[in-house]
């Protein structure tokens, strides 16, 4: 179990536009991971992504129809990690589309709303489904979002923490609105993703894609994270 106390750090964003940059030329390694956001509707999945990728927050973020795809790149020491983020529609009616997104994902953030107990229950169902259906090596993080509304809290921190421990999940309470722990949870996932293992990570699930022009360093499987 990995757990990070709520605190906000500002990781080095390689580039807000998403293209990997390696200031020091050839010494850096680049790897790329597919990450999917799951969770009940209106818990803040799109808001977390928007905060992480663009540093923005919209109070009335519109519902996601179908799916959205965004990328963000972060630097961990001498490694550049590119996240390919799949943001999904939350309503149960669209559940049948979910496997299309988490298939081949190396990481997932399952989001719930700390002011709504039902969304925590739904998060547990998502975790179960991922454990059963997704890649066995998938890194799952649980995000208790809307931490800024802690005065209306319905899900206790300890309850979620215990659940996360029992299930081997990363766990943080986040706030897309205040940016609390948003970058941190993505960084924590990046740190936990498999290293030196060419059968996992990027090349493992058949979903990894070739990198953009100039990202030569990552074309050899295994030449991934430090």
């Amino acid at each position, binding site marked *: 179990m990995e757990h990070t106390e709520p605190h906000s750090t500002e990781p080095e964003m390689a580039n807000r536009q998403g293209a990997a940059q390696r200031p020091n030329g050839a010494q850096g390694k680049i790897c790329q991971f597919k990450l999917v956001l799951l969770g009940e509707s*209106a818990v803040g999945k799109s808001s977390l992504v928007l905060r992480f990728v663009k540093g923005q927050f919209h109070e*009335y973020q519109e*519902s996601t*129809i179908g799916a959205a*795809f965004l990328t963000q790149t972060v630097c961990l020491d001498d490694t550049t990690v590119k996240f390919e983020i799949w943001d999904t529609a939350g309503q149960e*009616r669209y559940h049948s589309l979910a496997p299309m997104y988490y298939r081949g994902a190396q990481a997932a953030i399952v989001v719930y709303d700390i002011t709504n107990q039902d969304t925590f229950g739904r998060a547990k169902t998502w975790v179960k489904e991922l454990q059963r259906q997704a890649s066995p090596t998938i890194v799952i993080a649980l995000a208790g979002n809307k931490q800024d509304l802690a005065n209306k809290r319905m899900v206790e921190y300890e309850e979620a923490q215990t659940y996360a421990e029992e299930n081997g999940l990363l766990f943080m309470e986040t706030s897309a609105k205040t940016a609390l722990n948003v970058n941190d949870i993505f960084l924590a996932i990046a740190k936990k993703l498999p290293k030196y293992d060419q059968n996992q990570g990027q090349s493992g699930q058949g979903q990894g894609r070739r990198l953009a022009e100039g990202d030569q360093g990552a074309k050899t499987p295994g030449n991934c994270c430090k």
Partner: protein
Amino acid sequence: MSESSEGEDVRELFVQDGVLLFSATASFINFVKSVGTLMITEYVDNRRFVEWKPIDVTVDSDIQDQEWAVVNTVERRVRTLSGNVLPEHKNRSKYLRINFEEIKSFRISDKSRRLTFNDGKTEQICTYLFQHGNCEHLVGFLKTLVKTVPSRRDKHLFIILNMNDPERERIDKSFAELNVCNDSNYVWNIWNFQERPVVTTLEAFAKITDLVYRVPQHREMDDDVKEILNKSITEYQHTSTTLSNGEYEVIDCVSDLPNRRDFPRGRALCSEQWNGVQDQEGRIEDSECLKLIIFQGGIVPSLRQEVWKYLLDYYPWNSTHSDRQKLILQKSDEYFSMKLQWKTMTKTQEDNFTDYKERKTQIEKDVTRTDRTIDFYAGDNNPNLQVLNDILMTYVMYNFDLGYVQGMSDLLSPILHLMQSEVDAFWCFVGFMNQLSANFDADQVGMKEQLSNLHTLLAFIDPELATYLDNHDSGNMFFCFRWLLVWFKRELSEEDCMSFWEVMWTGFPCENFHLLVCCAILDQEKQSIIGNNYGFTEILKHINELSGQLNIEKILNDAQGIFYQIKESDRLTDVIRVLLGLPVLYNSSLDNHETSPFVISIETSNESSNHPPECSVDDVRISPEEIQFEKSISSNFI
């Protein structure tokens, strides 16, 4: 349980009103395009029939009394709007009666609104259009009487198995499973059948034999093979004319559509025109011509509020001023009684009604984040949000099975903004949802079908792009999901969205025109997609990022151009015809039948409602009625 007519005892097992005879054999030509009642009947000798009888009186288009019903008693359910029971025909000779034994297959299309019966040989017996509701109940009932198996080559086609004949059943089943003529993947088009019938036929059979014996497990062509073939055929055509005399070719790999014509948008329907088409009592005589004007140029914004009520089936086109006054009162009562149903629900009731509570919660979540950037919905405690909420909640009571699904609030928002009236907005929303309800199926079947149809159309129009998408994990067309689910609501400004929707609601120039709109955009983005070698994720991202970038006028222009390219193509297949609601000729490559002289469709019976006259600003070919119409408009201007 029976009644005597023509000396026969007959029991009506199933009755559905409001069914239009779309095409039929020659003896029923006079009834083509008439509305009538479709029945499943059983005679005393156990013979069963599908029977259709025209309604003798003019029936108002109000839907109230034309719903389907299962009838298992002697009581006839043939009523006019006023509720009068029609005098029974003395005999059933006027009926289009098909013995169950004649029907070898039936095909469901157009969101279950169209049902075609086939005799299994060369001909379709007849096609019905279900004007209200759809054919699912009838088909569901039919399936309780006969055993069917879906065709493997056409999932909408159901082959009826003859239970008295096991051999026949095996053959039918194996043909269904054989999947020889896979929808659009590869179809042999036999060009010179007339010149060299024997050779051509043998060769065609030889190819089928090859197909069956050589690779029974994997009959689909590899994508790269297809691509190579596509390339080589295209190149070959450019350098030589020999191929045009060739025996067969792979249809979906060849694009030789006629040049795309330009269809500049016309002028929007204005109030002078609108007032001009109404008679003294407020009836709109020729709604089709009106729709054509709207299709070509939309509606001026000041007139939208009124015209949308017609386009969305709230007001019947032929209603008078006084009809509408009555209707408004009645619909208002109906709305508020449904609203009261949920308004008066207690906390305990809600807690004991999970499905209801789920819908309610979802609506609350979505209403607060629908179009908040538009002034009409902006700001905290905006009362319009409450109205949005109330309409959606009342819709849950109106159609609980469908309930509320994400995306619906997007569809309602512009309607409410325009109508500025809770009741009007509700009934217009109902009309819109009647068209789009399949988009919100729990199992996503409606969406998947549309995406698959879109792929079929794209493969016909632009095989290069379709092949590229297939080779880049995007053949499922999923990146168009949002476009189709809410009809481009998320891609367009509110003003553009309104213009777009009203054009779509006219039903011109063909069925599934919105899919051609998708094709027009994809055509526009083709170079970006292929040039950048985008894969599934980049395509989705690219398509999502088109939001706010689309020029709707250009896209409608292009889509219309594409429609005529398809329609005028000499390679038009029945699959495409069916998708666009064009008459199926049964002489195309797919079936390779001779044209049946017996099948008469609307197009050949001089009716034009489903197939608009080809007219544009530049290229006007309009019918005499329309000339009359245009004259009446002109005289009104003067």
